């Protein structure tokens, strides 16, 4: 048992190490700075600029968080402060269903509903033409995917605030909403931050749903209605060809390594924030 546990711990190290080793060939050719800042992606010519992919990933994650955060906050406040228990049951059931839907189904929904909606109803108001396979589509689909996670984390955090705080605020004559705004949100701010960091790290790694709606164009997106090409999609789309082109494999492994590092850092910082909150109460 001891060995299995240790082996499992070592797995983390192994994954990081393995991916790094596989990325070494490309490091020998270019520096990390060159790779991250260049926008040219032509593997056949040996040009590996990761900027469009990193940019694409950041764009859709940002949009996903911006779109889902208000809904998540409002819904979880509603669930903890205002609603009756039967309402809560129904909403939690709906959230469970959302959380359980496989990502490929989200992708299908994206192509059936979100993409045409953007292409036909939304985009004409802003740009000349858009296929609908856009950063916005990726952001919307991703946003719906992280919504259940955010809400369940928020509800946990809000429920942990002791009764006395609400009692004190209400007794002073504040309305429920004033209590939410000035007391509960203020008190749980570190927890909210930690939850958002966790959700972002989930969103970063989401592959197939995003792949199906983002357009897969290796260019840095300049507007919401441009296509993009997030890092996970890059890896997924090209694994087939990577063994035939020199350094391609190394480049894709680098992409995987970048994802690993980012997710690692985000998870660690989320934990650190939570640790700081808990130590304040000791």
């Amino acid at each position, binding site marked *: 048992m001891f060995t299995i546990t240790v082996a499992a711990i070592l797995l983390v190290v192994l994954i990081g190490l393995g991916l790094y080793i596989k990325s070494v060939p490309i490091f020998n050719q270019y520096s990390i700075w060159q790779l991250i800042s260049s926008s040219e992606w032509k593997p056949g010519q040996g040009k590996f600029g990761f900027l469009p992919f990193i940019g694409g990933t950041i764009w859709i994650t940002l949009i996903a968080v911006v779109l889902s955060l208000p809904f998540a906050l409002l819904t979880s406040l509603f669930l903890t402060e205002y609603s009756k228990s039967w309402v809560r049951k129904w909403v939690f059931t709906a959230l469970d269903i959302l959380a359980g839907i496989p990502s490929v189904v989200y992708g299908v929904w994206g192509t059936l509903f979100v993409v045409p909606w953007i292409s036909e109803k939304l985009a004409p108001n802003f740009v000349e033409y858009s296929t609908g396979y856009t950063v916005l589509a990726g952001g919307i689909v991703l946003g719906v995917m992280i919504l259940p996670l955010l809400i369940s984390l928020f509800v946990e955090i809000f429920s942990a605030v002791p009764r006395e705080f609400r009692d004190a605020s209400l007794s*002073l004559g504040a309305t429920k909403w004033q209590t939410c705004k000035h007391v509960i949100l203020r008190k749980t701010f570190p927890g909210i931050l930690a939850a958002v960091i966790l959700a972002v790290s989930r969103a970063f790694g989401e592959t197939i749903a995003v792949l199906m709606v983002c357009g897969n164009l290796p260019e840095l997106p300049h507007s919401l209605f441009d296509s993009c090409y997030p890092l996970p999609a890059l890896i997924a789309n090209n694994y087939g060809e990577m063994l035939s082109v020199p350094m391609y494999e190394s480049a894709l492994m680098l992409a995987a390594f970048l994802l690993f590092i980012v997710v690692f850092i985000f998870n660690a910082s989320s934990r650190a924030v939570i640790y700081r909150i808990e130590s304040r109460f000791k």
Partner: protein
Amino acid sequence: MQTNIYQNPTRSSWAEDYSFLNNNIETTEDSSAKDSSLRVRDLNIYIHNAHILKNVNLEIPNKKITCIIGPSGCGKSTLLKTFNRLIDDTEGIRYKGSILVDELDIFDPKTEITDIRKKMGLLSQRPCPLPMSIYDNIAFGCKMHGERKRKKLDQIVEEQLKAVGLWEEVKERLHAPASKLSIGQQQRLCLARGLAVEPEFILADEATSALDPISSKHIEELFVELKKDYAIILVTHTLRQALRIADHVIFMYLGEVIEAGPAEEIFNNPKQELTRKYLEGAFS
């Protein structure tokens, strides 16, 4: 007062001694509070069909300390929280009857809850400073009611901190987080916070249970001083506290008010057997 603590009751006398707990409970109407702004009339509260408070009729005297005493689970805290309608949020709650504050029924749908709550200051068992600075804690209530002028807020903060005896201790660090204060200071801060909205009543729910003896004493002394301007209603689990500071006493048992009246009367000459037994320490 006669006590039976040192006598070792035999089986039969156990049954005898505790039979009063099951007999028909009689109550005494309280008519001694002449000057009263808070009257309770035929209050009945049901939570999920459990009858929590039964036919409560009370008058809370002004400018006096009223202590509500009674064993655990008798409904003291529920009654207290009903006064400022804090129990509204409880699931499955139903109430009948009326509570008149300054001749206005607080259950009337037309009355504005925040106005009622403004008249009542609540002091909880566990001191809970809001997650903000000392200054903001006290100014919170006023800000929620729309007070914006900086000068007025400064004045209120200073006034209330002086009233609870905290001013000298914290005047240098008004903008430090309130959570850094000691627990006794925090409770006084909560009191000052409640006073800042100019209530008529102070509702204290076992306000000293979580404090050390010295801080408890501070709070009790504050109550004695504050009763000049406010009606203080203190729910207490310790009989001794009531003996120390109460002017008016309400004894509750299983959701009913058994007896209520001036402290000397209740403590020295209780009319109900149940009250007498409780005061003797037969149950708690």
